[in-house]
């Protein structure tokens, strides 16, 4: 890893108790960690200056502590305990003070968490690596936009469109896009994913990304239906979500991998490949927080 090391160095300086696990995860998966962190470091430094590494590390550390606190509460209460949707929208998605550090954490966990780094490998090899020539890619709920920008970085023939409900997230995505130099191939806009409809049969996407989003909505089915509507006949979907993983804004609770696959199947999609990995948990814990990533196609 080259420039991406700056994220690890910043974490070691500002949150030592988080750095050891992150360093081990990157060392165990050097190719996947570099795939994300090297370009991200370049774009981030150009867009926000070198102080961004410290801010990102602190955002990641606070987020990880909040996740750990939420997991403890989950063990005690036995169910997710989110705030009301209105409170989450006001206190999370519409609040830049909360949303901006959260966005950095949401991207760094891909390289730093043992449960997430396999998602990067699946995304890189089974999704990006198998799309047709000059693929059109759509990301629903793109957040920071980094997965879409990585698609443009590693597939020079790809065009990417990202949409998200959060103006704060789209602001970060647009700044990173400018820094990446991919402005002609990548677009980001504030848009509700569930209302997205193809205008014609040719207006569909070879690749659709729906990553770590459905756990944030009360009913994931309309999002999956939007994926089905907008996917080209031979298209592929990178779909991921959280299982038994409470967070402040996780409102839809999956307990089993089979529930995730069934959601896809009920919407006319089937899994072609998948990974699911659980993070470390206390030996007596009743829940095993994990994250699943799958490649879907039309049935």
């Amino acid at each position, binding site marked *: 890893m080259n420039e991406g090391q700056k994220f690890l160095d910043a974490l070691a300086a500002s949150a030592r*108790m988080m750095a050891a696990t992150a360093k081990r995860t990157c060392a165990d998966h050097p190719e996947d960690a570099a795939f994300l962190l090297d370009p991200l470091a370049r774009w981030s430094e150009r867009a926000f200056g070198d102080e961004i590494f410290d801010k990102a590390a602190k955002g990641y550390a*606070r987020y990880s*502590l909040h996740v750990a606190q939420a997991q403890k509460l989950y063990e005690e209460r036995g169910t997710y305990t989110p705030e009301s949707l209105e409170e989450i929208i006001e206190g999370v998605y519409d609040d830049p003070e909360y949303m901006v550090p959260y966005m950095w954490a949401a991207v760094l966990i891909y390289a730093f968490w043992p449960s997430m780094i396999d998602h990067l490998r699946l995304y890189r090899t089974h999704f990006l690596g198998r799309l047709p020539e000059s693929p059109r890619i759509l990301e629903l709920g793109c957040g920071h936009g980094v997965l879409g920008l990585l698609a443009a970085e590693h597939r020079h023939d790809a065009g990417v469109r990202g949409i998200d409900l959060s103006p704060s997230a789209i602001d970060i995505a647009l700044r990173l896009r400018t820094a990446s130099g991919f402005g002609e191939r990548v677009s980001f806009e504030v848009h509700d994913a569930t209302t997205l409809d193809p205008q014609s049969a040719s207006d569909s996407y070879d690749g659709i990304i729906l990553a770590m989003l459905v756990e944030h909505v009360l009913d994931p089915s309309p999002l999956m239906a939007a994926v089905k509507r907008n996917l080209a006949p031979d298209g592929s979907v990178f779909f991921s979500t959280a299982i038994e993983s409470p967070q402040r804004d996780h409102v839809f609770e999956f307990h089993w991998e089979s529930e995730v696959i069934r959601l896809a199947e009920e919407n006319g999609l089937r899994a072609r490949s998948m990974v699911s990995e659980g993070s470390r948990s206390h030996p007596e814990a009743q829940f095993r927080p994990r994250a699943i990533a799958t490649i879907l196609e039309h049935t």
Partner: protein
Amino acid sequence: MDQQNIESRVIGVFAEQFSVADSAITATTGPEEIEAWDSLNHMSLVAALEAEFQTSFEVEEIMELEDVGATINLIGRKVRKAA
């Protein structure tokens, strides 16, 4: 509560939380030396320290607990402030 008492009780909490001998823990012991010391177990450590010393930590303070010595120092400050 004197400093030595705080030190020994903090070391006792670390030893129990991470299942290591008291003698294996020094002021410089940190996450690099204890593999189980990740974010989740850090919160378990915080809960155990809060119970042991009848105190509570803010998020900023939780971030300060980056090795045994820093933990001893922070708890010493909180105990003295509460006295």
